[in-house]
């Protein structure tokens, strides 16, 4: 297919989005990520029946926490698609990339950069 996707995100593979926990999302931001998106199977198509529903709930909770700590819940999003939908994956990646660029760098990343600059 050779689809173009933004090169500024890292793909972390999990056996099922049901494996993704709130802490995984929070850790990404704590380490300085500007955004994170979780891509699960279509709702109702989960091999483990409810893995993607579990993920959705956890993403919602992570959003609430990020809102409360001043990082912003908008930086996290969950998408659903089937494994055959490469173009849709590319589209979601571009959509997320645009959204994060619009939001700007995460306050955590800025704080880390400032700290490193002061240390240097």
């Amino acid at each position, binding site marked *: 297919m050779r689809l173009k996707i933004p090169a500024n995100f890292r793909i972390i593979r999990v056996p099922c989005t049901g494996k993704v*926990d*709130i*802490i995984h999302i*929070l*850790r990404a*931001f*704590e380490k300085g990520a500007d955004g994170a998106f979780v891509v699960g199977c279509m709702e109702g198509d989960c091999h483990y029946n409810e893995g993607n529903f579990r993920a959705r709930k956890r993403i919602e909770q992570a959003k609430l*926490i*990020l809102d*409360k*700590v*001043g*990082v912003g819940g908008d930086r996290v999003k969950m998408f659903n698609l089937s494994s055959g939908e490469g173009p849709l994956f590319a589209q979601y990646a571009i959509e997320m990339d645009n959204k994060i660029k619009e939001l700007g760098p995460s*306050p*955590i990343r800025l*704080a*880390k950069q*400032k*700290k490193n600059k002061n240390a240097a």
Partner: protein
Amino acid sequence: MIIAKKKPIEEIIGEVENFDRILILGCNECVTVCEAGGKKEVEILASALRMNFMAQGREKTIDERTLERQCDHEYLEEIRADIDKYDAIVSLACGVGVQFAAEKYLTMPLLPGVNTVCLGANEDRGLWTERCQACGSCILARTGGICPVSRCAKRVMNGPCGGSTNGKCEISKDVDCAWQLIVDRLKALDKMEDYEKVAPIKDWSTDRAGGPRKVTREDVKI
């Protein structure tokens, strides 16, 4: 088990605002099972607090630790060697754990990270309901295994009262009438003769009315 509910993060942020070195202390028992104060919740809270202060450009040490139990000397002793590293501890244990830790570490501020709710059961995924009020003198043998002390809003000993309608309590259509449940269960057990027996006046001195309670057992004391 003891059921607890996470406190809102903003409340905890407010409590720890003035401390620079904080330990988030979880408990591996009841609060882990009811998903309020176990290792996972400790990780989440610690990460959220770190990010909150980082975003404000403030530097704080926020460490994580989860003990087997916080209501036992031997496990609480595990943190003694590290206690001087912190200015405050946020305990995600139930009220018992928070208080026991506070008694043990006299000069350490202890802040609760959960609201302790009741003694209950995990009725369904994400649903915990009260089953016991620890009244100190159990009457479940007579009431078909359903407790009117914890499940009847009036704690009626010979029910139901006039507020019972279609099996529901008058305080809310979502609350089962405990005495309806008792009658249904006694019927199923073919023990309706128990229902006819008038319950004697309950001795409430074993409940909270008699002041803080304690159990002393000479047979297990060393």
